Each structure stands twice: as structure tokens, then as C-alpha cells.
């Protein structure tokens, strides 16, 4: 892991100091989404912000661009606070965010209209950039006539036409198929390396480690709950970067480990006395997975002899971190799996789970859930305490509301209900919103 890579003597274009995001609660407490963070965007760099989904990457991007209000700290644009004046930035969106009723050229011209360019000049600039991204001949097509890759080219053209000083990209290639994404990455690098665009820095948010290593000069790894800078890497490989090169593979592996280790600091100090923070954090954050994926993961692990590198495991399952990590988290939470230095090791329970039939799996799952998940334990106890064994799901949502943001509380409850149903702890009627204890 490299040291903090500041560029000596160069003033950052955008600098965020103690930037944070939280939601104040009625009772005076707050739900911290992003803890105070310093981030700087220097000229001449591609910066990748890497982290699992839902960790606050996109919120960070929106605060840096001025789209989303900050809860604390400030963002500076060439030393002046953002807010007095909008920074000259553009965003390329994951969903493209094109206006379907405008043609390609009208979409690209729209930002120029907003900046009061005359029609002739608008047209000239739009055509130039359309040519540069390889959209020649599609000027009067509507977005819905285009393939995903072509649409994102329009997104890039629209972003570049205003000659932004910093180009922000929010998971720009993750809605595309693998080949198209690779092509577009290459084209972006070409524009950037050959200085065909006046853009001075690119800030890309992604959950794809290889994408970050292919593109970026600097990779910032975000941790969760609340989001914080977990690690930072400088990439000094020459372009074009080769995925097979040993240095490339080593860096990907290192970042992989950083990503997986971050979520389980408590594992490092297993057996430590229960402290106040742990009591307050009565509810562990449940990863939003369905129990169905557990079996697949554990079975493969058994095939690998009970221990495997997570990186290998991801390859085996042809998954990205984003997809694999929540399932790994779940297995760890339930005590079916242990993590050691980027390796996953199956536990005795995990082994029994992988080898069991459906009913045995459910029994193991039920036991694991009751032992390890306070929320589900509490739900079962509350239901048992009621004479009619029935409670409204809203009751639990209210409890969770005190610990999570409203959306997150709902998602947590949804996940808990999924798990509880699978464990046959209770039944749930979606129409009435009622939970009923399963009598064994």
C-alpha cells in the first residue's frame, strides 16, 4: 500500500476538507453515512473511487460536484468554496440520463444552450465532439435507436462538450456488457492520453477493481458503515495496462484484500471484551442477500478443499467483488465461514451446511441466525411473547429506524424477513404486513 499520494506544490482543482454526510434524527442523534473525509482532485490524474455498492461512493461524487448538499466540511474549487460559483464539471451517469425526446446532437447541444452559446457555435462544437467519440453519422438518431455503448458515447460527448475541468463518471460502464465496456474504457483512455480533450482530471466511481487499475493513476478504497477512506493506492504501471502482467495481478489482489478485510475489524480482535460501542451497535448491519446464494458459495469452497483465496473464488463464480462480498459477509456473520488474509476458510457448520439436504440446511441456518443475528432473535422473542403469535412488521421497522436511515431500515427489515422466512422462524403476509410465528 502506498502512502498518501499528494502532489507536492500543485494546487488541487477540487479539494474537500472534512467532508461528511449524516442525517439528523428527531431524538438528536445522527445517522452517519460518510465520516469526515479529505479528498483532493489534482490536475493530470485519473482518480478511481472504489468500494462495494451502497457504501456512499455516489453520494461522495454528488457532494464533490455540488449536486448534493454536504452535512459538514467544505468543498473548494481552486481554493474558493463551492456554492458561490459552480465548478466547471460534468457527470457521466450510469444510466446514461439522456433525454429520449432529443436527438443525439440535440442532447449534446443542450449543455451549450444552457451556457448561452449561439446556434452556429453550438452546432460546430457538438459536431466536433460527436466526431471525437465516434458517433459520426448518428447525429439525428434518437437515443432509443442506439445500443448501450452508443448511448454512453452520447453521455460522454454531452459531458465533454462543455470542456469540463474535471470529468466525473458515476459507474459509467457498469450498465454495459463486458466487451462494450472494455472498448469504451480504451476509447476514454485514448482521448485522455492523447490530450484530445482539454479536461484536466477524471474522477471515476466504480465497484470494479480491474476497471480502476486499468484506468486510474490513484485508487481510493472506501470502507463502509459509515463510509471512510480505507486505503489509497498509486498505480504506476504504463498505459496500456495488461491484465496478465504480474504487477497488475498483484495490485488487483492487494486491493481485493483491502476491500474484504475492511468490513470485519471486529474479527481481528475476536474475544475482546464487549465494549460500549458494541452494545450500542446492537443491530449488526445485515448484508442484503438472499440465503439461496450461500449454498453455492460454500459448495465451491468445499470443492476447493475448504480454503480458498477470495480472488480465486470470485473468478470461479465469475462474479465481481460487488456481487460476491455480500454473500461472503453473510456467511461470516452466520459463522459458516472465516476470513484470514484474503482467504476464506469454511467452518464446521459451513461444511455441514454445504453437505446437507434442504431440511438440514434450514436447521443449521435457523440455529446460526438465532445465535448470531440479534434482530432476528429479538423478532422471534417478540412474536413468542404475543398471545396470538402475530405482530405487524411496522413495529420492527420503527425499532430499526432508530439505528438506520429510513430507507436502510426498510431494507434491513426486508432482508431480516427473507432470512426469517428461510429459517422458518415466522411467516409473513405482504398484503397485511403481519408476521406470524411458525409453530414447530
Amino acid at each position, binding site marked *: 500500500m502506498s502512502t498518501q499520494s499528494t502532489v507536492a506544490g500543485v494546487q488541487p482543482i477540487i479539494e474537500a476538507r472534512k467532508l461528511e454526510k449524516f442525517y439528523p434524527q428527531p431524538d438528536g442523534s445522527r445517522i452517519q453515512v460518510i465520516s469526515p473525509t479529505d479528498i483532493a482532485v489534482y490536475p493530470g490524474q485519473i482518480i478511481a473511487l472504489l468500494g462495494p455498492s451502497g457504501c456512499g461512493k455516489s453520494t461522495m461524487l*454528488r457532494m464533490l*460536484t*455540488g*449536486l*448534493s*448538499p454536504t452535512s459538514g466540511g467544505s468543498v473548494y474549487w481552486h481554493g474558493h468554496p*463551492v*456554492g*458561490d*460559483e*459552480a*465548478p*466547471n*464539471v*460534468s*457527470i457521466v*451517469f*450510469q*444510466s*446514461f*440520463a439522456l*433525454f*429520449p*425526446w*432529443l*436527438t443525439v446532437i440535440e442532447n449534446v447541444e*443542450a*449543455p451549450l*444552450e*444552457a*451556457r*448561452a*452559446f*449561439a*446556434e452556429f457555435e453550438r452546432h460546430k462544437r457538438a459536431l466536433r465532439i460527436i466526431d471525437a467519440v465516434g458517433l459520426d453519422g448518428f447525429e*439525428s438518431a*434518437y*437515443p*432509443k*435507436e442506439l445500443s448501450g455503448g452508443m*448511448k454512453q458515447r452520447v453521455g460522454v460527448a*454531452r459531458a465533454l462538450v*462543455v470542456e469540463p475541468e474535471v470529468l466525473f463518471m458515476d459507474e459509467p460502464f457498469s450498465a454495459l456488457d463486458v466487451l462494450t465496456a472494455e472498448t469504451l474504457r480504451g476509447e476514454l483512455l485514448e482521448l485522455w492520453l492523447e490530450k484530445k480533450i482539454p479536461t484536466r482530471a477524471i474522477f471515476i466511481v466504480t465497484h470494479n477493481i480491474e476497471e480502476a487499475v486499468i484506468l486510474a493513476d490513484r485508487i481510493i478504497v472506501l470502507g463502509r458503515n459509515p463510509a471512510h477512506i480505507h486505503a489509497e493506492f498509486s498505480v504506476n504501471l504504463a498505459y496500456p495496462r495488461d491484465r496478465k502482467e504480474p504487477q497488475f495481478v498483484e495490485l488487483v489482489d492487494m486491493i481485493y484484500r483491502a476491500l474484504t478485510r475492511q468490513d470485519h475489524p471486529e474479527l481481528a480482535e475476536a474475544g475482546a471484551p464487549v465494549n460500549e460501542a458494541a452494545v450500542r451497535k446492537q443491530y449488526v448491519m445485515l448484508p442484503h442477500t438472499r440465503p439461496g446464494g450461500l449454498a453455492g458459495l460454500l459448495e465451491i469452497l468445499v470443492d476447493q478443499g475448504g480454503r480458498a483465496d477470495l480472488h480465486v473464488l470470485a473468478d470461479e463464480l465469475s462474479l465481481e467483488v460487488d456481487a460476491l462480498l455480500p454473500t461472503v459477509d453473510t456467511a461470516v456473520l452466520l459463522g459458516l465461514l472465516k476470513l484470514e488474509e484474503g482467504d476464506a476458510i469454511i467452518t464446521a457448520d459451513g461444511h455441514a451446511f454445504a453437505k446437507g439436504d434442504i431440511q438440514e440446511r434450514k436447521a443449521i441456518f435457523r440455529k446460526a441466525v438465532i445465535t448470531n443475528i440479534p434482530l432476528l432473535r429479538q423478532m422471534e422473542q417478540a412474536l413468542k411473547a404475543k398471545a396470538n403469535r402475530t405482530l405487524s412488521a411496522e413495529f420492527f421497522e420503527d425499532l430499526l429506524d432508530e439505528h438506520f436511515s429510513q430507507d436502510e431500515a426498510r431494507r434491513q427489515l426486508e432482508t431480516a424477513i427473507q432470512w426469517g422466512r428461510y429459517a422458518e422462524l415466522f411467516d409473513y403476509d*405482504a*398484503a397485511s404486513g403481519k408476521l406470524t410465528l411458525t409453530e414447530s
Partner: protein
Amino acid sequence: MIPPAANRPLGARWAYASLIDIGVFISVFAVIFGIYSIGRSWLGPVRVETEISQDPASLPLYALYSLVRILVAYGLSLVFALAYGYAAAKSQRAELVLIPLLDILQSIPVLSFLPGVMLAMVALFPSRQLGVELGSIILIFTGQVWNIAFSFYSSLKTIPRDLREAAIIYRFSKWQRFMELDLPFSTIGLVWNSMMSVAGGWFFLMACEMFVLGNKDFRLPGLGSFLQTAASSGNTRAMLWGLATMVAVIVLMDQLIWRPVIAWADKFKFEQVESGTTGGNSLLNFIRRESFVIRLYRRLLHPVVNWLTIRFASGAKFAAQTLASVQTRQPRRWLFWMAATAVVALTVYGIYRTVGELALLDRGDYVILLRSAGLTFLRVNLALLIGALWTVPVGVAIGFSPRFARLMQPLVQLAASIPATALFPVLLLVLIRLRSGIEIAAMALMLLGTQWYILFNVIAGAMAIPTDLKEAAEIFRFSHWERWRRLILPGIFPYLVTGMVTASGGAWNASIVAEYFHFQGKVVEAPGLGSTISRASDTGHFHMLLGATLIMATIVVLINRVLWRRMYRLASSRFKLET
């Protein structure tokens, strides 16, 4: 917005151009004459008790008068609805008041606005026919505007987040956002609701062109008054001529305006992938290919819009906006308090006056009001039931069979576009001879006016049931009854609810014309809330009118809240077909 002209051989383009331009040139004469006649009529002195002609030869001019009234009212509706919807969607404070208010306004029948509107307009222009004309136009307006406003509001509320963010990060001015995001995103909803509104205008035309207010008898020359007069005097020949003219005008409007507009609106569909094309419209293609409209757009409209966009563009100097600040930008404090005070004061005054008026009603009046409310309630719901009973099987049959649909769709659309009120006198001719003919006629009119909403929604619902579910029903050998219970009814349920909500509101509003009618020299009426309102308006019993209106608004809003909203929730939680 219109694609740049393609590179077509010049000769072909000129041929088309000259053809259509000649057509336009000729019609200019007709337009000028039309404007001249309307101007002379509107700016002339007040003509109370105009003699409405019974001569079919006067029909073209009368049709023009009515058409202009409806179009002007629609234009006003559109402008008002855009402003209302925009205000409700962009300001949280305004939203609190405007949206519930919309619910209430929508439930008030056209005639209840009549005395207020007419007295105000006649007072404004005491010596000109313009006052009466404007009154009539505003009456039509009150029947057209609310659903458009609601449609625009809900469209604005559902603009995807990333598009809003793109508009901010690319520094769109409010004007540019309106023109390139808000309006296009709402277009499809606006078009469909405009069609419904204009149809509503035709439906209430007879009530809006000819009415008695206390001792004054207002008659405006037009198709509605022609039909009304023909019905009153029992002139069957004139009745049929009027009906034929109205159908012709509506069919022409459908072909020349709505079909091309719907085809054009297709490009505003918010979809990332091209779906099955709607086939386009030959007239639209002709206009697109063709010169006059395009040239008018390029030379006139486009430069103006462009100039405005640049004029409002904030350029490079631009204060940062966040999504939150754009959404919740509050108006100036004092402005808000002033507006709030005015609203509260007006409300208090209104309540005070209302209570005063209602105090004039004695116990007997209240008994009448409640009894008539009960009768109309029964009538409306029976009409809805009958409507649902026949439209569900027919709608499902049409929706399940593409061949049948192709055959039936145009017929159904034509039938739906004929305003039931115009058909009503003809219907009455037959039914009046039966013993409870007027009861049947009243319900028939409600049914005729509202069943189409149910039918169209059922067709859409049946078409939305996925083929694999139908195939599953086939494989499991569902019996006929099981197929309906397990597959079809749950599948169309959300659509059926949507249709029934609209139909229910429409039937209540229609009761004012369905239960009370001038026919063959006498008043034909079925006891009910609608006839109470119409009679009160006719005889100038304002306190009775007020009481009946309040009761009707309360019932409609209550039914919406208690019944339909629950059904909606059920539909969206349990019966939603998710992919």
C-alpha cells in the same frame, strides 16, 4: 424538436410543398371569414334570448362557434393546468393546499360554477356579448382543466432522479428545464388527458351554451344550443341533423388532430429501448415530410424558443445548485405570509357566507337533499355495475385477440367519441313512452358517458397479461371459471380500478344533465342530486344549489378516499404484475 429535413430529391419536395401550400392558402379564406363572424358576434351587443335557428343550413357556422368555444376553453385549461401543476410540483407548501383542492374542484359539477361565473362575466362586460361568451367558455373550462393539471403534476413528480441531476449539472435555466425536461416528460400524459378533456367539453356543451339563470335566459348560438332547442321543441329532423354534424366534427378532429398528435407524442415515451412501433400516422408523415408546418416551425417558432433559451441561460456565471435546493427553494417569506393570510381570510369569509346561505335551508330542504343524494348514489353505482358487467368480458375478449382488437378498436373509439348528451334526446324519444323511461334514460346517459373509461382500461389490462401466464393456465388445464378467477380478474384488477375511479367521478358529474332535461316543451326529470342542482340553477335557488353542490363534492371525495384509494393500494401491492 422536428428532425432536420432529410436529403430528399428537391423536385419531390417541391411537389408536396406546393400541394399543401395551396390547400393552406385556400383555407386561409375560410379562417378569415370565421374570425370575422366570431368577432362580429362576440363584440356585438348582448343578445339575451337569441333565437336559436332550427335550420340545418346554420349548422356549419354553429359548429364553428362551438368548436372555437371548446378550443379556447381547452387552451385556457392547458395554460392554467400547466401553471397549477408546476406550482404544486415545485413548491412543497403550495402542494399541501393545491393537491387536496384539486380533488374537491374535480368533484364539483359544471353547473355549480354557473351562477358565479356568469354573474361575474356579465358584470365585467355588461354591454357586449363577449361577457356571455366568456362565461360559457369558462364553464367549459371548469369541466376540462382539473384532470390535465393533475396529470402534469404527477408527471413532474415522477421525473427520474438522474435526468433532474443532469439538468442541474449542465446548468439548465428554469426555462430550458421546462422546455427540454418537464414538458417533454409530461407530454404523453398531457395528450391523453387533453383528449379526455375535449371530449368532456362536447359532453357538457349543451349545458354550457344554453341555460336559465333566475329570470334570465341565456342562449349562445352553437351546436349545443341547436341540439337543446331541437330537443325542447321536439324537432326530430333538426335533432338528427345536429347529431350528425357533431359526430362529423368529432371524427374530423380525431383524424386531423388527435391521431397525428398521438403519433407525434410517441417520441416522448420514456423508454431506453424502442418498443413495438405504433405504426405512425400518414398525416403526420405528410406534415413531417412536408414543408409548411416545418417551415413555420423553423422560421418562426424555433428562433423564438432558441432566443428565449439563450436569453434565460445563466451562462458561465452560475451559482451552484443542489438537487435539494432546487426542489425546496422557498418563496420569499413575506410573500408566503401574505398569500397565506389572503387564503385564510378568503376561506373564513367563504365559510361564513356558506353557513349563512345554508341557514336559509329548512329541514324539509335537507330531507330532499339527502334523499336525492341517496337516489343518485344508487343510480350512479348501478350504472357503474352494469358498465363493468358488460365491459369486462368484451374488453378481455378484445385484449386477448389481436385480430378482434384490430376489428373492434376503431369502432369502439368512434362510439366512445360521440358525446352521449347529443345522443340523449334521440334516446329519450324512445324511452319517454316507457313507464319508468326517465329513470332508465338517466342511467343510460351515465352509462354512455362513462363506460368507455372502464372498457379502455380493461382492454389495456387484458393486453398486459403476459403470454407465459396464459400458457401456464393452458398447461394446468384451468377450467373456464378458474381461468377467470386465477388469471384474468387479478390481472386486469389494477386497470379495472383505474377505469372505475374515472367512471365513478364522471357519472356523478353527468347526473346534472342525466336527471334533468328540457324535452318537447317540458322539463323531464328524475329525482336526484343532479336534478336538484340543475333545477336550483334554473330557478335561481342559490342556497339550494350550494347545499347540493357541497353534498355532491363531499360524497365524491369521500368515495374516492374511502373506497378507491384502498382499492388502488390493494392493486399496487397485491395485483401488480412485476417483471
